[in-house]
């Protein structure tokens, strides 16, 4: 089980890195799915199988699909990939990378420096989660509903389209 955790963790990190480094959106999304799957495995090893399932269903399933839909609507082309490439110059990412490394180092230091806690990993079954969710956290669930309502209303208002979006590439071609 431990080995599974570490392997899955490594996969997750690598896949996420690839997400960050790939130029093509679709490729990146695929790597993202991989990453999510790996994290789901991690969840499983940590004794949260229900969450693993949710991770796959909602993150890898719903959210990524949503993004892919939008990408499809936007009709991205090879040119965009090239552009993405040109944006990712070392001069752009070196500064943030250093900053992040500093932050990471600090985080690692802070987390590791913690006096060794118990290393138990008890599986918390879906039932327990459900009991808690619809017990004490009942109001939280209601709030989730409200949150989703806000999201939906917002997305609805902002997403309404009256005019067809024409990609600037097509526009340019039409102009020439």
């Amino acid at each position, binding site marked *: 089980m431990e080995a599974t955790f570490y392997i899955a963790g490594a996969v997750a990190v690598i896949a996420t890195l690839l997400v960050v480094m790939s130029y093509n959106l679709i490729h990146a999304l695929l790597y993202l799915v991989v990453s999510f799957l790996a994290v789901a495995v991690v969840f499983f090893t940590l004794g949260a199988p229900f969450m693993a399932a949710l991770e796959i269903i909602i993150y890898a399933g719903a959210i990524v699909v949503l993004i892919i839909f939008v990408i499809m609507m936007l009709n991205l082309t090879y040119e965009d990939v090239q552009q993405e490439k040109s944006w990712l110059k070392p001069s752009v990412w070196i*500064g*943030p990378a250093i*900053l*992040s490394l*500093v*932050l990471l180092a*600090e*985080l690692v*230091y*802070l987390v590791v420096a913690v006096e060794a806690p118990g290393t138990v990993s008890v599986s918390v079954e879906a039932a327990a989660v459900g009991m808690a969710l619809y017990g004490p956290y009942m109001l939280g669930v209601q709030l989730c509903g409200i949150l989703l309502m806000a999201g939906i209303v917002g997305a609805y208002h902002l997403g309404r389209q009256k005019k067809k979006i024409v990609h600037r590439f097509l526009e340019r071609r039409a102009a020439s």
Partner: protein
Amino acid sequence: MAELLWLIPALPFAGALLLVLLGSRLPRALVTTIGVGSVGISAAVTLLLGIEYLSESPAFYHQVVWNWFNVAGFSPSVAFHLDALSMVFIFVITFVGFLIHVYSTEYMAHDPDYARFFACMNLFVGSMLVLVMADNLLLLYLGWEGVGLCSYLLIGFWYKEKANGYAARKAFIITRVGDTAMAIGLFMLFQTFGTLHIQTISTEAVQVWDTDARMAVIIAFLLLGGAVGKSGQLPLQTWLPDAMAGPTPVSALIHAATMVTAGVYLIARMHVIFELAPGAMMAVAVIGAITLLLAGCAALTQYDLKRVLAYSTISQIGYMFLALGVGAWSAGVFHFMIHAFFKALLFLCAGAIILALHHEQDMRRMGGLQKKLPIVFWTFLIGAASLAAVPLVSAGFYSKDQILWLQLAGENGNIWLYLAGLLGAFITSIYTFRMVFLTFYGESKTHVGHQPTMAIKLPLIILAVLSLVGGFIELPHNFGHVVLFSDFLSPILPTISVVPDFNRYEWMLQLLAAVVSLSGIFIAYLIYLKKPDLRASLHRSETAMAVHRFWHSGWGFDKLYDTLLVRPYVFLAKVNKDDVIDSFYTFLTRLAEAFHDLFSDSQTGLVRNYVMGIVVGAIMILTITIFL
């Protein structure tokens, strides 16, 4: 009669007030009446009071008009104190003042600012009277500054000329320097005595201080500072020659007869303090001696008739200081009185000449006036004789002789001071008669326009008579021994004791003085009338001319002060016109703006950078948690 004391200064003040308020609307005759009349009545009151004073001979008259203010025991009053010393002064001020007012009615007849002139003159007389009658030093200070103001106004009377304004300001500021010293003296007096009441101070000073007490010396020096400023003595004499920019009656009244002698009055008035400070007394004498020599030399080289008289005034006040400095108080005051007569006379004559010659003041363009202005000539001659101390006949001889004599014979006598005085007398007679010869003899160079009428002649004649006979009230004891004047003053001013050994030399010294005076006249006669070659050869000599120029500029004092004080001050002021301190605050705002620009540039509008900002913040926070 003593109740009328307040009237003496009040009348001129009232005149001034009336003229200020209504001046421009009144007819000239009424202005004349108010202007001259107020001083005239004041003189009459003075006369009545004087007669009463002489007959009653009280210690003094005193009248509190009102309590000026009272702060924690400091309560000067507006109160007048009349004793013999003040009597002499108010007599001179009102009478000579009256004569000069009368004279002015003609002299200023055609001036558009006739009313303003008389307003200022009245104000001056009033202030001067307050000065000499004040029973406390603060009131004296009021008069003191008041006359300064009037002096300023009258020097700059013809204000359209820039130079006049400059001279007026110079006079005010320089005298104010002295006043400042005096003010500090007053603070110290108040600190010691808790009052500025003159009589109290005089009685208490002897109890509080030993002779040569440090405080006394310092105070005496500070008061001397005030006196020096007002009286045009070294080193604050430079304003007086320039003060001749004012109308001639002003020069006669203020810058010859009365105001400039305020210093003499102050020292005489505070003689108790000075007696406690021998060092200061010595300083008074030395200042007097040096001033009389320097001013005499400067007078030798002036061409402007009034400037000669101005330097001569400085020089003559030097004599008074000389007298005061050795403790010959009454001699000093006596010379003040006589000087007032003859110097006023000389100025008025000069005024008559100037008026006659269409405001020509340069002696090189005068000459031959002996025939054309006979009355002026004779009265001028009498004045000149008095100034040059022509023996026996002139009042100036007696007053000056007394001073010279007491330099040697007085208990504080000093041979060097005597010699300086003697040399001064010699120079005096030279420049006096240089003036006479250049103006009245030789060929006529300018057309005579205006013949003096009664309003001018009468004051001239009266003053001439006084210049002749004034001396007879105080004659040396080997020579009639009349001591009316010193007797009169003796209750107020201590008499000087004479070293008896000197008595037998007195006649020799008088002879010496007479010879010096006459030889000076003779030399002037030689150079300026008899032997023009001599003069020409002097003019050819380089050294002589250099000395001439140096003396002409009044020993370069003006230039010295200009480079040492005025220019640096003006420079400093001009350089700092925009206030360096302000630039500090400007710098602060610039700093704030610079920071604004810096921060403003950080607001790039790019999300990436904003994210970076958050990350930096997070790193900062984590760093703090690590290291703390």
